[in-house]
């Protein structure tokens, strides 16, 4: 494994770091309190090239490899404190762009990828349902074909970007008894007749990333908006989820690095009992743990991405990466609050928000328990 950056990679990564630090950190506290998505920052990211990182150059993207991509997202997470914005970008990349890149027809790619790359279109997917979460392929939303149209019926929950999405990848089954083999994926544009984006969901963290319930009532989808093959939805979803699990916490590694540096600064500056609190072993020990977590998380992330870039099977590595980094991120945030004492608990110090934002990482893209199931199954258990 060689994670040494070329000059070109370093230039790109430095540019991302500068952009994220200087251009995206405004109104974050207020937007978090009010649950407001920062459209302007989204557009800036699009113009800058974030959403299009992985998209092939023929479709308006930069065509970066997985390792460069996760490293860029890590720098984004280091610089940008709006974890909700980053979550929306992640949902957009892994659940809308990736399925299109791999399974989209030429016409679909030409129609949607340029806009998704430059941020003029916002994407997401609709998979989870009130009664199917971890057991994703037991979904109940149905699809029937009628007069060269697909008709969707059912309801989806926890749809990230739901309230703002221009395009959703929606999963539905022809026959629930067929299990995974009955599932197909569809590109559904906003304002499609019969699609209703219902109430916005209030959340503990990632509050700047809007999430909604979405209902389909005889929702008509043109036949050319079938994504992949009929019955190919489960395979498509698994691929998209593998990418998501491997990459979605790249920005969390950056967030951990930022928290670590902040804690070092605070532990050196804050004096109690006549010395910097960093001189107390109990504080220093927490910071050492943070450092080890950041480094080990980064290695998991880069190793996954390095393998992925070599087209190796990464189903196991993606699950381990997601499981491990989410755990580290939550622990780092807890430690950061503890090191900052009462101040860390105060909103204006912007540490408590990181913890609220981090906790969801043990739930989305498959809970930590599901990741453990995957790892166990890959170990022959």
């Amino acid at each position, binding site marked *: 494994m060689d994670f040494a950056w070329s000059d070109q990679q370093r230039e790109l990564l*430095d*540019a*991302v770091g500068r952009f994220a630090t200087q251009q995206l950190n405004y109104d974050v506290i207020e937007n978090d309190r009010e649950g407001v998505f920062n459209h302007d920052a989204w557009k*800036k990211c699009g113009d800058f090239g*974030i959403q299009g990182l992985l998209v092939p150059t023929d479709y308006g993207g930069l065509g970066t490899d997985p390792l460069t991509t996760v490293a860029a997202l890590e720098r984004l997470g280091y610089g940008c404190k709006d974890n909700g914005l980053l979550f929306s970008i992640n949902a957009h990349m892994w659940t809308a762009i990736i399925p299109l890149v791999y399974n989209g027809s030429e016409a679909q790619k030409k129609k949607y990828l340029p806009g998704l790359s430059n941020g003029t279109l916002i994407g997401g997917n609709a998979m989870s349902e009130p009664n199917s979460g971890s057991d994703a392929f037991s979904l109940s939303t149905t699809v029937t074909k009628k007069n060269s149209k697909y008709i969707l019926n059912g309801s989806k929950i926890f749809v990230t970007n739901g309230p703002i999405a221009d395009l959703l990848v929606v999963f539905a089954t022809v026959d629930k008894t067929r299990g995974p083999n009955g599932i197909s994926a569809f590109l559904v544009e906003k304002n499609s007749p019969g699609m209703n984006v219902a109430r916005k969901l209030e959340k503990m963290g990632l509050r700047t990333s809007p999430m909604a319930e979405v209902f389909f009532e005889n929702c008509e989808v043109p036949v050319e908006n079938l994504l992949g093959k009929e019955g190919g939805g489960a395979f498509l979803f698994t691929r998209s989820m593998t990418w998501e699990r491997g990459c979605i916490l790249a920005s969390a590694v950056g967030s951990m690095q930022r928290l670590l540096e902040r804690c*070092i600064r605070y532990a050196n500056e804050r004096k109690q009992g006549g010395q910097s609190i960093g001189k107390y072993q109990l504080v220093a020990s927490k910071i050492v743990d943070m450092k080890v977590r950041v480094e080990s998380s980064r290695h998991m992330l880069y190793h996954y991405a390095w393998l992925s870039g070599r087209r190796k099977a990464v189903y196991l590595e993606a699950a381990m990466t997601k499981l491990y980094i989410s755990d580290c991120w939550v622990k780092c945030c807890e430690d950061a609050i503890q090191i900052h004492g009462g101040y860390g608990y105060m909103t204006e110090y912007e540490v408590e928000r990181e913890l609220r934002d981090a906790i969801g990482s043990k739930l989305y893209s498959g809970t930590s328990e599901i990741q453990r199931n995957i790892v166990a199954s890959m170990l022959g258990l």
Partner: protein
Amino acid sequence: MKILVPFKSVPDPNDATVAGAAVSTPKSVINPFDEIAIEEALRIRERGEVSEVVGVTIGAPAVDEQIRAALAMGVDRAIRIDDSRALDPYAVARILGAVVEKEAPDVVIMGKQAVDDDSNQVGQMLAGLLGWPQATFVSKIEFLDNKTRARCTRETDAGLEVVEVDLPAIITTDLRLNEPRYVSLPGLMRARRKPIEVLNCDQLGVTVRPLTTVLSIARPPRRAAGTRVESIEELMAKLRQEAKVLSQYVF
């Protein structure tokens, strides 16, 4: 019509290196005033008033990173004068003078000063050497009379001064001229295909030697800790006798 933008590579004024965290080494960036000059030149080109923006800088190959940043912003092509000596403003002006002779631009736009040494001399010296008009500390540029003249608004201590200069001219930029654009990742990719021409002083036919020598550079002395005073009278006495910022005869 062509604009030449000379720019300097300086230590990043925004670089917050965290002691102990070992995350970054001090980085170099384009001098912020020069970045404003680049931005202005690009905006003028985007308005269709000039057809080419050429960047020029002086330094070792390491400054290619800042050259690529300029190309990524949108500069069409760049020239690096390969010279790693510590040059003083007069030497820089002489070299740039030779580049101007070679490139024959219609306007030179550059930062009013570099943020590392704050000399604020190169633009003026360059104008003097070339015998060109100059407009310094400029916060607004308009071309007039079929682009034969430029009307420039200068920021001075007395207020905004409007001057007109015949072209070709040297224009140096102040902070409020514009806000430079962000280098995008697609811009960076495009920059890799743009040419960087490398020249040296011999090729330009100039011989420069520094007229000034930097003897030493030191940090300002650390400020002593403040003291607490008991009364207004004590404060006044200290201001008079220790700080010597108040006259004995006031009040």
